[in-house]
């Protein structure tokens, strides 16, 4: 079976700085793949490459067997890859509903259909009470939900989540884990960058570890947690701390 997403030998240099180095990765349909690594490991750069915000220096990206390397972001989104931003980028002066509607227009050109779809997603994300307030009025947790809601509204097959749980309280991130699981139930494949170790380990089918732009492991969570290279590179104290 063709993997939903295949990244082949992907590299990105900024000037002399190597941000992503020869990364190859495959995602099966319906999978949740966690992506971890220390700060500056190149996780967000990898997202930017897959979503088309950046063009790779070398390598190819295939989505459902189709080459998407170097396509502009809106084309990639139209093909079925949606993303969230690490630092939420709400359309500040538009209402929450209007924000989500922008995403919904992609598959529902008629305003009524887009609005209905947007309402549905807003309700599911628990944003109903804030439906008509400007997005600038949301709290951090609210903005994270809005990011996710907007991305979902584009009707993706693959969803890239960039630290949607960072800065949330434990209760809030538990709710998020439940949300993400539910999204997978609908048949959406997920690639998730996360710093909250407990969440990522319980959520992911497999975990990929980036270190200095290189992929050093792609394994089930329990294997990754025991992998000496990973512990060496990154997990070390942090994982032991969260396991304790």
């Amino acid at each position, binding site marked *: 079976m063709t993997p939903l997403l295949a990244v082949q030998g992907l590299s990105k240099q900024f000037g002399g700085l190597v941000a992503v180095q020869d990364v190859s990765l495959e995602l099966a349909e319906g999978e949740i793949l966690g992506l971890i690594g220390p700060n500056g490991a190149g996780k967000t750069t990898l997202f930017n490459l897959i*979503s088309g*915000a950046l063009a790779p220096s070398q390598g190819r990206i295939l989505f459902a067997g189709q080459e998407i390397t170097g396509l*502009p*972001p*809106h084309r990639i*989104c*139209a093909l079925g890859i*949606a*993303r969230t*931003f690490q630092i939420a*980028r*709400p*359309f*500040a*002066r*538009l*209402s929450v509903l*209007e924000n989500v*509607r*922008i*995403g919904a*227009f*992609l598959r529902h*050109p*008629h*305003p*009524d259909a*887009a*609005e209905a779809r947007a309402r549905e997603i807003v309700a599911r994300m628990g944003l109903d009470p804030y439906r*008509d307030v*400007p997005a600038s009025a949301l709290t951090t947790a609210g903005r994270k939900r809005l990011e996710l809601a*907007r*991305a979902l*509204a*584009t009707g993706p097959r693959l969803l890239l989540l960039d630290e949607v749980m960072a800065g949330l309280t434990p209760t809030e991130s538990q709710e998020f884990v439940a949300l993400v699981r539910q999204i997978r139930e609908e048949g959406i494949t997920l690639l998730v960058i996360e710093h909250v170790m407990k969440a990522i380990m319980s959520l992911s089918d497999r975990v990929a570890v980036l270190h200095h732009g290189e992929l050093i492991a792609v394994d089930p969570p329990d294997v990754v947690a025991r992998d000496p290279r990973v512990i060496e590179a990154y997990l070390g104290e942090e994982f032991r701390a969260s396991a304790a």
Partner: protein
Amino acid sequence: MNHRQRLLQDYARLAAVALPLLAVPFLVDPFLVSLAILTLYWAYLGNAWNIMGGYAGQFSFGHAMFYGIGAYTSTMLLLRFQVSPWLGMLAGAGLAALFGAGAGYLLFRFGVRGHFFALGTFALAEMLRLIAAETEFINRSIGVHIPLIRGDSWWRLQFERTQGNYYFVILGLFVLGMAVTIGLHRSHLGAYFQAIRENEEAAAALGVDVLRYKVYAVALSAALTAMGGSFFAQYFLFIDPTLAFGVSVSVQILLRPIVGGVGTVWGPLVGALLLTPLAELTRAFVRTPPPSLEFLRGRSGVDVMIYGALLILVILFIPDGLVGAGRRLWGRLSPGPRGGRRPS
């Protein structure tokens, strides 16, 4: 409420504003009619600017380029080829849209944004002015007169006897422009424009072809602005490079929507309702100043000086314009959290 109902409601509001206005030429004296013509004319132009500068957030400092293209196109077609200004207006709109799309595409494609985009549009308008002043075909910097005709002619869009007809023409244009904005405001196009204004990267990540929609915004705004230029040429019966492409045209065009409220449907009209009579009052004041201000008699510049001061005050104290300030005040006065849609 579904989309169609909302649209109908907005159009009903527009009709409620526009229909009573039809009576104006029958009720007031000619001076007030000419004031009303100017007010609607500036509201119309402000609305056209607002599509690009307000909704799509592509701040234009050189809208005179589109305006001038419209003014010269209809005028030259009329003078050289006897084409009706109505057709000339459409031709000018098409030409301005093409020019705007081309210029916009170049600037956007090369990543000219924010400050630099504003400066770029400014420079383009100035270039057109300088080129116009050197072009023999349009009589260089001397300008072009549209010959007077006796009586009224709808075909030639010239009314010697019934000035009020100009009023109906500009009222029609104004309603057309507002109808376009309302349609836009309620459609995915308008939503995309606003998303681009708020955050281009986020919009692109949600499947919005940012470059394409920015170019659409420029083309649409350019076409409407050019039609205003054609109207002015027919009303004033004279056009020269400064009247067509001058900096003051660009400034005047953006002044009303800024004062009224950028990116709101009614902002340009509100701004025009305030500023245009203000300008006329100032001019009247300078013609016959009170004794204490005798030195102002006949001096030009007072009106624009007031514009300048007003612009500063508005930006400093009500940056979202009169409509925005009004909304905030309304929000504070009305009890409880505001449910339902935000008013347009």
